[in-house]
């Protein structure tokens, strides 16, 4: 396994009295697509959110253990959280474009980090829209509201927005669950293109999707990471009985 961007050590997450994640240890390999699979409510989304500290604002959440991003523990009280999050693009279940036009949605990330050079922004907006294969569809209406796009286009726009701050990691929380099959295919193809440059962590409950895009898969069940390995290993030769039951359909 190559060097890892994110490594999780003895992670425990509690929300109120509930022990949501139990003693997770995980090394995420660099520049690969890693899928976290498991039944609904097993904690896979929580695991994803701990990676960029999006749980912070929820009341009575307690996180124990370490999440190291590039060797830096992001739960260290001294760490600057905006700096951590900038390293990770996030794709949520449904696209949430910002309340502005298409151009500004992509330029926003650059602007909040201080880049206001019009020429540079123009070039970057075009680059990131091309990266997600959206440029040709929107180049004539960059100033129209992002909400006029179809939901599949919006999700690609949100992906481009995430890429605009040059992250190293892309976190996807069931990013295709609201999309039709064609848009889903678009997004999946993008992941395969983008993994040359980014580490992609994907939460999904669609086994076929995990099969189509993943290099590595982690199976999460009842807050525990049951098994982690290459896609081939998890999908075809799982070691644990629970993984076998889930992958071969006895468990849902």
């Amino acid at each position, binding site marked *: 396994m190559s060097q890892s961007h994110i490594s999780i050590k003895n992670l425990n997450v509690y929300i109120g009295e509930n022990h949501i994640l139990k003693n997770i240890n995980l090394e995420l390999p660099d520049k690969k697509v890693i899928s976290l699979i498991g039944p609904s409510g097993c904690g896979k989304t929580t695991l994803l959110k701990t990676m*960029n500290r*999006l749980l912070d604002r929820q009341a009575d959440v307690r996180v124990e253990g370490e999440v190291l991003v590039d060797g830096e523990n992001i739960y260290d009280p001294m760490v600057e959280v905006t700096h951590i999050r900038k390293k*990770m693009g996030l794709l949520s279940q449904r696209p*949430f474009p910002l309340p502005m036009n298409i151009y500004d949605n992509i330029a926003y*990330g650059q602007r909040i980090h201080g880049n206001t050079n019009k020429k540079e922004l123009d070039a970057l907006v075009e680059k990131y829209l091309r990266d997600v294969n959206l440029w040709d569809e929107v180049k004539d209406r960059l100033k129209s509201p992002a909400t006029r796009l179809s939901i599949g286009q919006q999700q690609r726009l949100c992906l481009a927005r995430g890429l*605009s701050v040059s992250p190293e990691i892309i976190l996807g929380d069931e990013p295709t669950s609201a999309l039709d099959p064609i848009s889903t295919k678009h997004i999946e193809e993008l992941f395969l293109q983008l993994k040359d440059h980014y580490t992609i962590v994907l939460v999904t409950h669609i086994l076929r999707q995990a099969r189509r895009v993943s290099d590595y898969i982690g199976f999460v069940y009842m807050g525990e990471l049951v098994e982690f390995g290459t896609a081939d290993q998890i999908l075809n030769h799982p070691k644990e009985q629970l993984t076998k039951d889930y992958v071969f359909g006895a468990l849902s």
Partner: protein
Amino acid sequence: MRKIEENIFKVLMVISTLIITSTLFLILYTIFSKGLGSLNWDMVSKIPEGGFYIGKGGGILNAIIGSIYITLGSTLLGLLISIPIVIYINVYATKNSLFTNITRLTFDILFGIPSIVYGAFGFTIMVYMGMKTSLLAGIVTVTLLIIPILVRAIDEAVRVVPEEMGHAVYALGGTRWEAAKIILRQSTAGIVTAILLSFGRAIGDAACVLFTAGFTDSIPTSLNQPAATLPLSIFFQLSSPIPEVQNRAYAATVVLTLIVLVISVAAKVVSKKLSKNKI
């Protein structure tokens, strides 16, 4: 049987809608039919001349200007205080913590306090500080009255913004302040509605300004001078036994209604323009 039940309720709903709508038109009819006759250019362009309240010449420009000053002043001041409160309880404070719950409860209680109590409270403070009735005292008191309205209405608008909108900003490395700006942008229409509600309340309230802003026949030129307001002007004219003066009171209500109407329409247009990028 269920069809009959459905129809009965449908009829009831239509009747209540009609009652309320016709009440509105009845109110408009009353004030316009009684007031339009006395509404002339003098009315809105002159201040009261000596003996105005016993039927001599002049107008209510003092009250129009006073009301506009107080309403604009208090709405601006109210927004300056309310928006940070709403941002704090929605973006910075821990969600559903004791602090946010107590804050929301406080504003619910403040919302229910009658305006005369705010007026009396403002008056007590003024006496304590040795102030006379003034435009400033009126603005501050009306601000106290409308802050709960603004906070509650803006809070409602901000709370319906999906949480993921904030997450999107955080994920780009944005700060809470940057997230707050996006969330406010997303709730522009709600904020305009809040302003409208508080504006209507502020311009129509008599009890708050009675002891604090006072009443005068001249137009205030500084914050320390007393100011007249339309509701009080209406009250004083309507209490007159002279029919001519009473009719002028209705003309003043027409002016008040028109101001509120113009502001409402303008606010709707602005809000529509501003929220075109909203999801």
